[in-house]
């Protein structure tokens, strides 16, 4: 999704402007994070980047759903039997997840893990999970089952079987923290991304007003192949102290019977989302952008899905029942190319 070309262009401009460029990468949260830092001194940029990377690793240690020793792992192990005290940082993130759940009308939900597992288990089966099973699992899903105690800085689950997974905002949050570390270390220009789906632009490159990130069209069924790089661009998103997050359903799917299902589950119905091929969200921070992009996938085509807060932007690419592809955007411009014609 993140086009490499603009980066190469920025690097050429950087050397003209006397900037050096340092790239760092790390593997965390089951993806590859990359930091592209611009500035005057390579050793200083690298030093700052290393600190940012260590912040990402530390967050992974704390937030990972898959590590029994992480804070999230401990919560899932014992919050059903009693309140679990958490660090103020994690509490802040949980509160934010609760607020985002409200803002998105329940579409973004950190408790959908049991439903996802239910569908994952059906992968390769002849039939979808039984409705009774889905109903039973849904009884363990929902933010109303998660009690946050502000005064005690603790979390408790209303019933056994509830669990939280911050995976859907973890990458964006990690980018926010990494950007904060970079700013503290004096870095003024950087582009950061996690697996190219969560992107943060800190400041702007020396030759432009913002980091321009190209968003590509999803490979939709029934579409004529888009050959030229220009044709493949869905939107060109300028990022200056802003984050972009992209969610798409074509990556991981479950095969049940003859149907392929998306890995994102609508918490309201307990069923995999359909209809949305790609959702992208843009706002001042990565965690919110991640949450919104995930929530947009859950939106029903045709509706204005979510009342976007001021300053947020979003793009949706949806596919109708007969394969017709349409787009919706707000606060974000679709790429029209030099010809001036809308891409779709």
């Amino acid at each position: 999704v993140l086009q490499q070309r603009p980066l190469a262009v920025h690097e050429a401009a950087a050397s003209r402007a006397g900037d050096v460029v340092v790239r760092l990468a790390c593997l965390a949260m089951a993806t590859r994070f990359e930091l592209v830092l611009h500035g005057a001194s390579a050793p200083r940029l690298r030093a700052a980047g290393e600190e940012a990377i260590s912040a990402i690793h530390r967050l992974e240690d704390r937030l990972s759903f898959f590590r029994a020793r992480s804070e999230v792992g401990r919560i899932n192990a014992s919050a059903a039997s009693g309140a679990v005290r958490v660090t103020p940082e994690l509490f802040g993130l949980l509160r934010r997840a609760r607020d985002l759940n409200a803002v998105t009308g329940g579409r973004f939900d950190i408790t959908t893990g049991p439903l996802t597992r239910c569908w994952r288990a059906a992968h390769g089966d002849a039939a979808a999970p039984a409705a009774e099973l889905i109903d039973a699992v849904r009884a363990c899903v929902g933010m109303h089952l998660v009690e946050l105690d502000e005064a005690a800085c603790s979390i408790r689950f209303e019933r056994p079987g509830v669990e939280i997974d911050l995976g859907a905002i973890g990458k964006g949050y990690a980018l926010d923290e990494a950007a904060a570390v970079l700013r503290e270390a004096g870095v003024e220009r950087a582009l950061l991304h996690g697996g190219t789906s969560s992107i943060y632009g800190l400041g702007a490159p020396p030759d432009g007003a913002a980091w321009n990130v190209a968003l590509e069209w999803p490979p939709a069924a029934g579409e004529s192949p888009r050959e030229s790089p220009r044709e493949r661009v869905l939107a060109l998103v300028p990022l200056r102290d802003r984050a972009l997050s992209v969610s798409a359903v074509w990556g991981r799917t479950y095969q049940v019977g003859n149907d392929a299902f998306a890995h994102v589950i609508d918490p309201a119905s307990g069923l995999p989302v359909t209809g949305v091929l790609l959702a992208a969200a843009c706002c001042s921070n990565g965690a919110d952008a991640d949450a919104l992009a995930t929530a947009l996938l859950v939106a029903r085509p045709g509706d204005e899905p979510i009342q976007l807060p001021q300053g947020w932007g979003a793009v949706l690419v949806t596919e109708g029942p007969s394969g017709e592809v349409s787009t919706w955007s707000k606060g974000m411009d679709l790429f029209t190319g030099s010809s001036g014609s809308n891409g779709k």
Partner: protein
Amino acid sequence: MASDREEPGAPVRELDRREFLRHGSIASMAAMMGGVELHAAARPAAAAATKRRRSDAVASIGIIGFGEWGREIAATLDRMEAARVAAVADTFPVMLQRAGRSFPGAARHEDYRALLDDASITAVIIATPTHQHRDIVIAALDAGRHVYCEAPLAHTVEDAGAIAQAAKAAQGQVFQCGLKYRTNPQHRNVFQFIRSGAIGRAVTARAQWHRKQSWRRASATTARERELNWRLDAALSPGLIGEIGIHQLDTADWVFGGLPVAVTGSGQVSHWRDGRTVPDTVQAVFEFPGGVHMTYNATLASSFDGEYDLFHGSDGTVMLRDSKAWMFREVDAPLLGWEVYARKDRFYREVGVAMVADATKLEAQGIDPTKDDPNVETPLYYALEEFVDNVLNGPFPPAAGFKQGYDATVAALKANEAITGNTRVSLDPALFAAVE
């Protein structure tokens, strides 16, 4: 350990029964039962004491130095019911802002002396640059506070001696050095195992720490940046061996039960040629009494194979890695017994027998000892747990007290001298005897 044994008449555990049926001999059954004890490492004294303690007492702790390690310490303490991060001191306002975000209830001070003036803080943890330890430790001890000081204690032997003497004189106050492996259950398990003769006669040891990292720090201001980069300042830095290697060297001191008599070292700036003179890659050979040598490698230029410790004996080798341990037996070594049913992991052509601390306890809790224990904490957690327990219920002699801290610091600083001078340095026993 007696408490870890099974009650007479207890049903045969499922694991044993399966293995018994598979191997089908009374001898192997007996060997397995005999081997169980080796698994059952003593938990750190702190953990045992925590179980005794049922009071709601909470230690109010001040953290001096809120850099990366100080924040790790604070986050670890925050998970303990018996500890509260009550105050943070750091000379850099940005760090105090971070403290405000992470620990809104904690007092914040730019000067550590203000933190020491607060009578409600009973204990302090010092995670400042090494060369600042001496003044802060002595001021904290003078103020009557319990002190946890990160390792190494100091950047000079003289300062380390001054700290150790002050700690020794502060009767009734806890002083713990951050040699974090002394309190780590897995290290204790391995220590007991090796000291019981299970790998035969000690032959040699090898340890390494490999990471791809510049060790440089950046800041928005030049003055602050100079301050932050003390590890790259030859006049102040104990080097890789002093800042990192000290923990692995301390493990060897502990396992071998003695201190090195000489060290030969060399160091290079092999990769980070950014004007630094402090080596980014070091080698050292420590000579222990009895002709047992330990070789040590550390580099900031390659991450391959990370961090591990190997203790080679005539009957087998033990590898410590990621808070886990494995044993590799020589084919001609006598059978210990329990290894027949232990988990085995393959390392290229070798098969390692996983050494699980507290295997019998884990089984009693319904946790399969052949899987990774989800309850295992970081070495830092166990070290801080012992400190907190000691503050609340002590003082009892810590596993890593002023003497262990002093010895390890001196040996590491002398090794750094050997490394920077590309030479061999003898370690006069009188040097260690200066603090007893």
